[in-house]
């Protein structure tokens, strides 16, 4: 693994982490409005899927199975969040 690739990977994870933290913080900030929270979570998850798949494409290992995995993990997070807030529905 050359140092340029290492730096690229680190930058990728740093950007991803920052955006996930931003999404999480906004969800917490809007804790008074469940609809906005869901919207923010969906946007964050869409970013997560897109960003992840772009990385796989850049590494030439993008496959339908990978796409399905990202969608399934995101759907589990979304369903978990809804279940977590079941009393607010």
């Amino acid at each position, binding site marked *: 693994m050359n140092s340029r690739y290492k730096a690229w990977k680190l930058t990728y*994870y740093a950007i*991803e*982490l920052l955006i*996930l*933290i931003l*999404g*999480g913080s906004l*969800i*917490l900030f809007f*804790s*008074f*409005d469940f609809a906005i929270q869901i919207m923010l979570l969906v946007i964050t998850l869409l970013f*997560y899927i897109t*960003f*992840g798949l772009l*990385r*796989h494409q850049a590494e030439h*290992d993008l*496959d339908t*199975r*990978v796409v*399905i*995995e*990202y969608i*399934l*993990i*995101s*759907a*589990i*997070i979304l*369903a*978990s*969040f*809804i*279940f*977590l*807030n*079941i*009393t*607010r*529905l």
Partner: protein
Amino acid sequence: MKKLQKKLHHLFVPHTGNNHRSKLLHHTSLLIILFALLALIGLSNFIKTSSPGVLGISYSITQNDLLQKTNEARAQNGLPPLTLNTQLAQAASGKAQHMFTNNYWSHFAPDGTTPWHFIKGSGYEYIYAGENLAKGFTQSDQIVQAWLASPTHRENILSPKYDEIGFAVMEGSLLGEETVLVVQMFGANSQALAQAPAEVAPQETVPEEKIATQESTSQVEEVQEPTQQQPATPDAAQEVVELPINNIVESPTLNAGFISQSLTLTIVSLILFVLLIDLVVVGKKRIPRVVGNNIDHILLISIFIILIVVQNRGGIL
């Protein structure tokens, strides 16, 4: 036993038998988890609509518990217990109602109304006064623990200046969120003035903004020459004014808050755990696979777990 071990190994550890990917991370397993969650959401909604009262959030916040825990903390620090005061309870109740009506979460209302306005309005003539607030908790002991963990709130609870206390526990909608609000008002009555030094000015304390002893003339006058706002004696006040209801005890058959949080945390933590095992094992063996990036998933789930924990914590002010 060996069979169970083999099954768990198959579920959690990547090896040749599961195509070098923990079985729990296979699409079929993830789909089962997703459908299980969707079924739980559907079932919870069904129970909520068909049998109201079965599923809800369990609350146990009572004035007696709050007083007991507060006085326990004081006793541990060699301080005398605080006694319940009807006027302070009325002031706390007024403050809670004002917060719900005007939709704010602060010691000072957007229109400038101070906590002391409610204390004076109740007829309580104070030398010292203080206020602690809490929202979003479900148990009395959690609230007192949270206050004690915060230096400024702790200072109010453990202040030797106060000898009386009043509580309000009120349920309502605040900033778009259904919540339980707890207001704790502390006071030292001006009746103690006779024993106190002559030049005592009213002191008011809220945790986040320490108010320096500002001797406004009117406040000094109120202390030294109470006229129209002279409080009734505690005994007399109890005869005239009933103490506001300060208990919220709700025990639904199923505590939805606890169940959903525990289950969600268990499910996502389990996935996180398996992802970490997968990352370590496959990373060591350097097996090429066509799967999603484990670190991506680990980052997402970790942030989500932090979100669950932080969102379900109550707030104090």
